[in-house]
């Protein structure tokens, strides 16, 4: 989800010297399987590569078309529950909430 901070001109200038943010990559989709980082206690439990896909056009905006000047909090549904040992390893039993930190700006770093 786009964050205003990362859209600001100051931030864009700062980032120009570093790797591209996912939705400014115009060289095609940015699919790369990655291993989630695991705590030492569970080496065997989490061997699940994660595919992250960026739009071919380089734009990724889930809020496109939504009214301006509103704050949205999507409602969570009960779905995609990890096995208990995997959930313990990832720090959440909900697959949708497994969001490991990958560096400023998200993927492609």
């Amino acid at each position, binding site marked *: 989800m786009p964050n205003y901070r990362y859209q600001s001109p100051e931030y864009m200038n700062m980032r120009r010297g570093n790797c591209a943010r996912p939705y400014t990559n115009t060289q095609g989709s940015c699919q790369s399987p990655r291993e989630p980082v695991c705590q030492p*206690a569970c080496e065997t439990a989490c061997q699940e590569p994660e595919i992250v896909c960026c739009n071919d056009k380089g734009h990724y905006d889930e809020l496109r078309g939504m009214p301006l000047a509103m704050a949205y909090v999507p409602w*969570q549904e*009960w779905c995609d*529950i990890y096995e*208990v*040992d995997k*959930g*313990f390893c990832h720090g*959440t*039993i*909900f697959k949708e909430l497994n969001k490991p930190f990958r560096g400023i700006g998200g993927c492609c770093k």
Partner: protein
Amino acid sequence: MSEQRPCRHELMEWINIVSFAVDDVKLFLDTHPCNTEALEYFEEFKKQRVQALKEYAKFYGPLTLDTASSCEDHWTWIHEPWPWQEGGC
């Protein structure tokens, strides 16, 4: 025939795992109090957690006040290692 003593480390790890599952589903249920799947999930792992805690208390001493036994001749709560001590976690 005596009951087989479970591995302390493995049992503790299992207790951590099911307790975490219960903690996480509890947070979900706070905002989704009528979700039947979440309620079933909670019941299942609460049951497993209670069983695991009882088993641990039986062989290695109590982890909670509810599993502390008054049948022992001394108060084991203070004698088993605390979590920050060697063998405690």
